[in-house]
């Protein structure tokens, strides 16, 4: 039993404010014998149920209405007279932008009406009245209030303990529109290789597929005795739309807890190697590694290669030292290295950089669950934390959503999709891929929603 006594945390407000220093590791690797824990389930990786968006969502525009704008020199009276001369039964002007909404003549299709209008030299633009739909918004109470990382509407982010941050609208990973397309397949599993997971946390209890494996204590109970792993797991795939707490990136995907650090937040390469191989063998689809070490190690690289070749997407944090990219994030061929940005899409000053950085994700004041034992009874088990550790699970969640939608994709393809659909947030200073944010801050909508061929 590893759950420690309740932490004595004085004056913890309703929400913990935690600043991550990052999980350090040492190079003094030691070998110990491990045994495989119970498998949570067995399934061939290629026989997953396919979740696809509805391919047909009805007409794309109003069947009896078009929008028209005249050239600036055309008088309103003339414009309205002209529209009525076409036989349109209703003409309504939207004055602020000089656009007319007109009902098409009976018997005329939208395409015919547009073709007719576009032949008129006085008309600048004629367009269908396209349908819109509400973006999927979860009912988790902290989503709107604190999770700028998923949907940033601008304004002041008011964090307990008197921290107020001016945020920029749109500096987020575009989660809301992406959830219209995919919320994740419950058979898609994200392994969280970290300090463990609080498996009784309301945000995670229904999401963990098994008690996991603890390589730090060599047992089959990956309960979190630190806090880091619980926070990371929640960012990636907290129980969402459950009227409680926060939203996770991958609503419906599951979590496999794998404990590879001790209660002090440090571990050994051997534990990580064991954890990667174990998670891959258990059928994990994505492995998140919000940790790293300074030393290149061929055994660690081999473990990453092993998982990669078994169809697992590996995501790792670049590190928080404003230095070089840590390992295993630096294994460019097998691992996506994730840097951190903030609520204004600015790169975080602590985020490690280098040619191995692939993408960035929000990593400053990110809200996530913390172990229930770590907070006093009156407080809610959630906290804010900063670091590339918080950035990486956003990317792991996106990888899980991509695989939920297209399980036939290879890890290399998923990595490329995530990279090539990113927003180049620092293009004014470093256009194109750079060593600070890689291809840019991830954009879930572009990675998941259909591209419309015009």
């Amino acid at each position: 039993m590893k759950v420690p006594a309740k932490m004595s945390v004085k004056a913890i407000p309703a929400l913990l404010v935690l600043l991550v220093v990052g999980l350090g590791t040492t190079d003094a690797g030691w070998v110990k014998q491990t045994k495989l824990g119970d498998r949570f389930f067995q399934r061939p990786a290629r026989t997953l149920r396919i979740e696809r968006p509805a391919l047909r969502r009805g007409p794309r525009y109003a069947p009896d209405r078009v929008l028209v704008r005249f050239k600036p020199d055309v008088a309103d009276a003339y414009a309205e007279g002209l529209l009525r001369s076409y036989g349109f039964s209703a003409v309504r002007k939207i004055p602020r932008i000089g656009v007319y909404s007109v009902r098409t003549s009976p018997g005329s299709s939208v395409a015919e009406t547009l073709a007719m209008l576009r032949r008129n030299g006085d008309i600048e633009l004629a367009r269908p009245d396209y349908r819109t739909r509400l973006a999927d918004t979860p009912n988790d109470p902290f989503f709107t209030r604190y999770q700028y990382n998923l949907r940033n509407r601008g304004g002041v982010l008011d964090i307990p303990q008197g921290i107020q941050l001016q945020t920029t609208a749109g500096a987020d990973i575009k989660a809301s529109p992406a959830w219209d397309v995919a919320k994740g397949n419950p058979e898609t599993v994200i392994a969280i290789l970290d300090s463990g997971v609080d498996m009784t946390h309301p945000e995670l209890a229904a999401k963990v597929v098994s008690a996991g494996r603890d390589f730090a204590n060599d047992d089959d109970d990956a309960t979190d005795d630190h806090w880091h792993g619980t926070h990371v797991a929640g960012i990636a795939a907290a129980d969402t739309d459950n009227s409680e707490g926060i939203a996770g990136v991958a609503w419906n995907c599951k979590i496999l807890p794998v404990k590879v650090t001790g209660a002090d937040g440090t571990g050994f390469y051997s534990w990580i190697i064991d954890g990667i191989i174990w998670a891959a063998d258990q059928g994990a689809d994505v492995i998140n590694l919000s940790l790293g070490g300074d030393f290149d190690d061929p055994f660690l690289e081999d473990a990453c290669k092993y998982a990669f070749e078994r169809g697992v997407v590996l995501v790792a944090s670049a590190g928080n030292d404003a230095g070089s990219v840590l390992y295993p994030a630096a294994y460019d061929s097998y691992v996506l290295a994730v840097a951190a940005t903030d609520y204004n899409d600015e790169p975080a000053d602590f985020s490690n950089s280098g040619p191995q950085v692939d993408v960035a994700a929000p990593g400053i004041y990110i809200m996530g669950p913390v172990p229930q034992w770590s907070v006093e009874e009156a407080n809610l088990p959630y906290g804010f934390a900063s670091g590339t550790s918080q950035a990486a699970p956003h990317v792991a969640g996106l990888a899980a959503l991509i695989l939920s939608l297209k399980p036939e994709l290879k890890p290399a393809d998923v990595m490329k999709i995530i990279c090539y659909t990113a927003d180049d947030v620092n293009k004014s200073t470093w256009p194109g891929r750079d060593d600070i944010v890689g291809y840019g801050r991830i954009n879930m909508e572009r990675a998941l929603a259909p591209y419309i061929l015009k």
Partner: protein
Amino acid sequence: MRQRSGGAWRLVSLGIALVLAAAHAPAAESKVKTLMAGLNFEYFSRTLVWDGDTGSARLQATLVSARTDFGFGKGLTLSLSAGLSLTDFEGLAFGTLPITLEYDASPIKGLVLGAELEALLLKSGDFEIKADGRFVSSFGMSKTWPLEGFAVEGQAKGRSNWMEASAGPRLAYLLSSAFVPYLEVNARWFRADFRMEETLEDLHGLETKRINGDLSFSVALGGDARVSDRLTIKAKAGFIPYAGGVDALASVGLLYKF
């Protein structure tokens, strides 16, 4: 490249077949009683469920073709046509490509070849019943779209082919020598494929959507109107019902009798 060669070969083969058929016509001059040639315009829509899809998408085709009708007497007519097609695949989604693509572009151009055979089955008073069979095939031209807004350069390249075979009875009322209205009921078999290739730098995807034989029925009203001794207008309009709606078809042709 091989695909393109294959498509071109099929097109050339059909072209040769058409030319040979036309070349044989003079040889069978003694059998050809009437010869008419002209232009034909045709439109049809089909609401289809592509293989592997859960929802339907609407295909609309507009054809403009040159047409020659060979009348062999006793109500037997062979019609051959060749021309251009514009096919719209609005709403068709390519969901297994790395980045899902949804088609909302302008129609794809293609070459169309067709043959139609009409034979008299029964004549009674002012009514006659004919059997009508028709085959049309469209060979789409390749089209490329740039993929914009990504961190790297990209493009999508698409190409589509379709064919339709239809057959059924035609009940005509011999109203006068100048105008013959008719009612036609056809079974229509449709096959199509759309090959879409996606490239984003070193990320490649290829998806081919197929419909291997969609069967539906159409009902159409038409009429052949003799405008003069040599000019005839042939027009037809109808619908193709399916669960939840109807598709439309229409055609009009102007033929000159030699």
